[in-house]
């Protein structure tokens, strides 16, 4: 089984929405997502929890009205983000995360139906990553940072190939698609799978994803990156996250 990736390096900008507490715009693998984070703010009575903050995630497709698929994505994101946010610090309050999809890669071979939007499962990593960046931008206390990726198992010439950050075309022909997220402590935070796969395949996917998400932070010399030719699959998300935050902190603390 070979591993391949089609995507380019991710790009992100923080604080793009001047009126939100925190915001981020993130583009990767053809997806562009903008997120806003507001909180902790007053929770509605029905969402109020006496001992912890309610995390509200809203996913809005670029075109068309959201449906059950979006609600499903929201509930997955909500439960995994609640794990890293220190919800106990803000009882009875609300942390609201709104994810607006701006662009998703188009499958040039199909004319999609758009009025009833149904977001593709493989958008998950982009949504997740944008949410984490926006939380960092808002300064909402979190336990650890986290990175996420999608891996598809695509049959090819009788063998199977796993693709990191699959394109819509890959997803269409894939046997199974998996989304995994890891915290900065290398803990598995989220694992969602669709399709047929064996335990062995899942193990492979896990290793691939962990490799993308949990690459050790390069030392100051940056030599490791060059020498380590095994790690050429996919972008180094953890490094990306750190350098993005470095820029943000540097510009915030320019006066120091």
């Amino acid at each position: 089984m070979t591993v391949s990736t089609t995507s380019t390096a991710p790009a992100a900008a923080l604080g793009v929405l001047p009126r939100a507490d925190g915001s981020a715009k993130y583009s990767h693998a053809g997806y562009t997502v903008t997120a806003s984070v507001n909180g902790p703010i007053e929770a509605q009575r029905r969402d109020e929890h006496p001992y912890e903050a309610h995390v509200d995630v809203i996913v809005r497709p670029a075109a068309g009205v959201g449906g059950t698929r979006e609600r499903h994505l929201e509930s997955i994101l909500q439960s995994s983000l609640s794990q890293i946010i220190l919800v106990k610090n803000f009882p009875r309050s609300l942390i609201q995360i709104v994810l607006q999809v701006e662009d998703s890669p188009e499958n040039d071979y199909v004319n999609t139906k758009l009025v009833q939007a149904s977001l593709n499962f493989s958008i998950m990593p982009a949504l997740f990553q944008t949410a984490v960046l926006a939380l960092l931008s808002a300064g909402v206390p979190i336990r650890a940072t986290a990175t996420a990726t999608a891996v598809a198992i695509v049959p090819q010439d009788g063998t199977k190939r796993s693709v990191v950050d699959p394109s819509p075309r890959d997803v269409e022909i894939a046997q199974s698609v998996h989304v995994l997220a890891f915290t900065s402590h290398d803990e598995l935070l989220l694992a969602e799978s669709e399709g047929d796969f064996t335990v062995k395949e899942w193990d492979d996917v896990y290793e691939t994803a962990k490799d993308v998400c949990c690459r050790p932070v390069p030392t100051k010399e940056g030599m490791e990156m060059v020498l380590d030719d095994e790690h050429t699959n996919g972008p180094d998300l953890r490094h990306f996250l750190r350098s993005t935050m470095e820029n943000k902190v540097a510009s915030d603390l320019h006066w120091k």
Partner: protein
Amino acid sequence: MPREAEPSLNEKQFVLQALHDSVRLDGRELEQYRPLELTFGDQYGVADVTLGKTRVLAKASAELTVPYADRPLDGIFNIATELSPMTSPAFEVNRPTETEVLISRLLEKTVRRSGALDTESLCLVAGQKCWSIRVDVHVLSHDGNLIDAACFAVVAALRHFRKPDTSMEGGVLTVYTPAEREPVPLSWLHSPFCVTWSFFGEEGDVAVLDATWMEEQVRSGSCTISLNKHGEICQIAKLGGVPVEAVSLLQCTNVALVKAKDMSSKLDRWLAEDARRRDKGGLLAELSAENDRVPDM
């Protein structure tokens, strides 16, 4: 949902006092817009408009569908405006607020009712097949004057948009995927723009263009005028509020025309720039014969 915070009495008084002295908090002239910027997305039909700290994203999309029974010769054209909590936590999902209804009505009147898009050209087979064009307006950041920004974004997105090409041969309708044939632009008739005046004070004697959110919260009335560069009014909406001399309203309309012409030429320029940028790669070169597939329509 938490209520929208109201400005303090000090702020209200100060803003009014300053406006009476023709001073705006951001140093603008009364009839001056904030910097208007537009970026197109990688795809066709995505327009991201910023007006100061107000930011609106519009995305146009097309779908094949059946025309309405009472209008068999027309395609379908809709503008969807929903303010999400991203705009402000005071907006709730699936609970339309007054602001939302008003914006959506204004866009509807300005763009749809004024016949900016030729809906007849969207019809493919009378009574059976037509295009349904939909524009989704997403307000990402609200710092006043959503209407002007949203209208600009909608017009920009629609003019930038390309729908899949179709052909009719021997009664067989073929819809080509983007891989087969380069998508085609919509049949566009004229470009209307909204210009919103805000009136201040008991007498409504101070009139200001492109109000910020703070100014909107203290204004006593507003009037949105939609025009195209040919000097045709598409819509005027002064929905109550402080009484304004009829003569002043006529002057407002004349100034609005100047602003609309200005927006029109800006949009033309940006569209041309984007077209040049896209053309460079020679998009058609990317397509390879290997990818030809039987169209699914």
